[in-house]
């Protein structure tokens, strides 16, 4: 329950606090990392294929954590069931939340099933960890085939879910932008540009998040980072950043120039962003460090392939996108509706709607990600990268088992779990089945 002094003594208060700043940020990460996954699943960027399972898991974990922000911001969280029983559709865009969110969760479950089914089928044969093997077997829903035909079917499901999912991801993030953009009471929110700007910056932040997550897991597991993957991801980042920069400039010109903007919009924009409390967050963090500096620092392919450079830039991009959410949510509410006064928007550190709760939401998302990373075999794509921790696997004499002839046979029943010595050989073979066995070896 919010403390009463949160309201201060003011006539007008910013009622949407830091949690609502975080909500578009998290949902942007959801949509953005989903888009990264679709780059290989739908748009054929096969080089990014190893990152797709990681991006999908990140997206799913953040998707499950995202409602905590709005739930925590609601003053009567125990009445959340009314969103189902008294849904005010189609009049209230906020009422669409549960519909969109649940359809997104269902779609993600289907996609995760298809993405990880083959890996789970391989895991289901683990002998030394019977519980995890049983869990993996459950997650295949009984479909244990690991031949080329099953893989093709999985890929078809993934393609479909990616195609539909990208629409739902945009809908999920777009409805949030629409809530702000359709608010005719607020001069700085009421703009058809806001939903588009939100979606584009969501893609930007999603790419940056996947980039950082890639570095983190590679560092954690001691994998060698593939510079080609980094460079390609950065190329997409630059493209999204260019679009973001274009939209930012449009917004700046159409709100911050007296000749182009409605009077109220211009007054508040200049008072808050040019001369006011949001100068640094807007010009330094959102535009300077969040867009312009990364565009410069990732200009050449050599710079884009640099790990340190792209890591720093991905972090700055994330900070910049968060500051963009802050500038929109806080800035819109700082502009008073009824007086000439700048409404105070205090940063609360603990308690209701505070830094503490926001960190809690991110903590929940992180724990969910760890859980999903434990459940799902997402490391299969990284097998080609030599590890620095484990010694290089020695090809065992049982290599003939993974002959090409074995690939076309449908596995009717689970084959016995291969021993740990034979599993290490998988990276030398390119067959489907041995690839998943390789996943088995690197996935402990």
């Amino acid at each position: 329950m919010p403390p009463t002094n949160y309201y201060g003594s003011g006539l007008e208060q910013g009622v949407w606090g830091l949690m609502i700043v975080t909500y578009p940020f998290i949902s942007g990460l959801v949509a953005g990392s989903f888009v990264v996954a679709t780059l290989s699943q739908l748009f054929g960027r096969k080089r990014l294929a190893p990152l797709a399972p990681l991006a999908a898991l990140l997206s799913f974990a953040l998707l499950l954590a995202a409602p905590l922000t709005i739930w925590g911001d609601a003053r009567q969280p125990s009445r959340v069931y009314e969103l189902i029983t008294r849904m005010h559709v189609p009049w209230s865009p906020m009422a669409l939340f549960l519909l969109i969110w649940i359809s997104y969760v269902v779609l993600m479950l289907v996609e995760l099933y298809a993405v990880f089914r083959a890996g789970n089928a391989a895991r289901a044969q683990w002998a030394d960890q019977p519980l995890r093997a049983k869990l993996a077997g459950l997650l295949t829903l009984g479909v244990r085939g690991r031949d080329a035909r099953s893989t093709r079917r999985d890929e078809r499901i993934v393609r479909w879910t990616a195609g539909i999912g990208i629409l739902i991801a945009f809908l999920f993030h777009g409805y949030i932008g629409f809530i702000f953009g359709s608010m005719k009471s607020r001069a700085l929110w009421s703009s058809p540009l806001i939903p588009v700007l939100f979606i584009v910056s969501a893609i930007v932040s999603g790419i940056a998040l996947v980039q950082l997550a890639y570095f983190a897991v590679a560092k954690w597991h001691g994998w060698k980072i593939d510079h080609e993957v980094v460079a390609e991801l950065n190329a997409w980042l630059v493209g999204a950043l260019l679009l973001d920069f274009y939209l930012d400039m449009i917004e700046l010109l159409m709100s911050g120039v007296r000749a182009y903007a409605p009077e109220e919009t211009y007054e508040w924009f200049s008072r808050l962003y040019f001369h006011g409390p949001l100068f640094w967050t807007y010009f330094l963090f959102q535009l300077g460090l969040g867009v312009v500096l990364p565009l410069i620092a990732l200009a050449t392919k050599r710079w884009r392939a640099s790990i340190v450079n792209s890591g720093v830039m991905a972090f700055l991009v994330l900070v910049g996108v968060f500051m963009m959410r802050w500038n929109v949510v806080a800035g819109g509410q700082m502009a008073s509706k009824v007086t000439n006064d700048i409404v105070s928007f205090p940063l609360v550190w603990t308690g209701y709607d505070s830094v503490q709760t926001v960190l809690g939401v991110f903590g929940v998302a992180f724990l969910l990600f760890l859980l999903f990373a434990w459940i799902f075999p997402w490391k299969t794509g990284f097998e080609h990268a030599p590890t620095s921790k484990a010694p290089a696997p020695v090809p065992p004499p049982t290599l003939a088992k993974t002959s090409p002839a074995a690939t076309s046979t449908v596995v009717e029943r689970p084959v016995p779990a291969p021993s740990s010595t034979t599993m290490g050989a998988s990276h030398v073979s390119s067959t489907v089945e041995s690839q998943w066995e390789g996943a088995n070896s690197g996935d402990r």
Partner: protein
Amino acid sequence: MAATPMAPSAPPEAKGVSRRGFLGAMAAVAAAVGSAGLFLGRTASAAVVPVARPSAAQMKRLLAYYRTKPRWASWLVPELNVDDGWQHWMRTILNSKNLPIAHDNFSRIGTTIKQTHHWVMVIDERRCIGCQACVVACKDENNVPVGVFRTWVDVVETGEMVPDPAGPIVTDVGNYRSEVKRSSMPLICNHCDHPPCVDVCPVKATFKRADGIVMIDYDLCIGCGYCVQACPYNARFFNPVQQTADKCTFCAHRLDRGLLPACVTSCPTHARVFGDKNDPTSEVSTLLATQATTVLKEDLGTDPQVFYINREQEVYDENSTGNTVYPYSANLNSTDYATLSGNAPLPGDTGGQR
């Protein structure tokens, strides 16, 4: 709900009640009271005074009464009961389930939804002396917590100091004469005919009655803040005690009993005039017909039902920096408060930067 004493007259204890029947009835009463507390008393339970539990025979009479009579006293056909204290107003008089109300598509009101009254307020700024009696009366009447207001009176300054060699105000950079005007501006929920705050509610907790009053069901509000944001007039706020959105109700509980809103009765200068726009003989109809009136932020298309006579048109609608609005209830952390206390430069001193 059935356990609350709403019968117009308490029936006398009937004779010949069997033991089994008595026990069964008591069990039914206990279940009714318990479920009423569970499902209805979520917010208001703290305010409800404990009432005597009806006896089995009373319960029978109550049920018989409810079978023949409507369960609620409507504001169109008031069936009022002295025992029905103000604590129960949400369940009875203002039970949104039983009222002709609209959550959206407000053009229906007056067409498919029958409209007998159309309550409006006309505020004559020429008469307002800024005494804030209406603010105090509203707080008193509606138990509005400290720090938030259902109605308030802003102090508005317009105009500027004009350079004039013959002006009476002598400064180092020349003489000035004052063309500054100060006026008081009572503000209240406009009870718009097309209220954006009602449209955006995700759970239909807020509604517009057919007589024009926009209200909130505090038992349904989830406290998301969307309506507070969507109101262009800042008439909605979060009630820090009950943790829901809150706003002016035109004192609907008084209206339904034939009384005027508290702010209207308390106004010493008759600056606030309240009445039925559908009644051509009412004072508001006369004023609207004879006086030039304006509404706030007309360009937003919300169709406000609070009309102003002699308002400084540009003040509220355009946020022009040439005018200054000082709410008496100013935010202590705000630039306005700093300006008033001399800790911030006055608007004219910033060299046109603001």
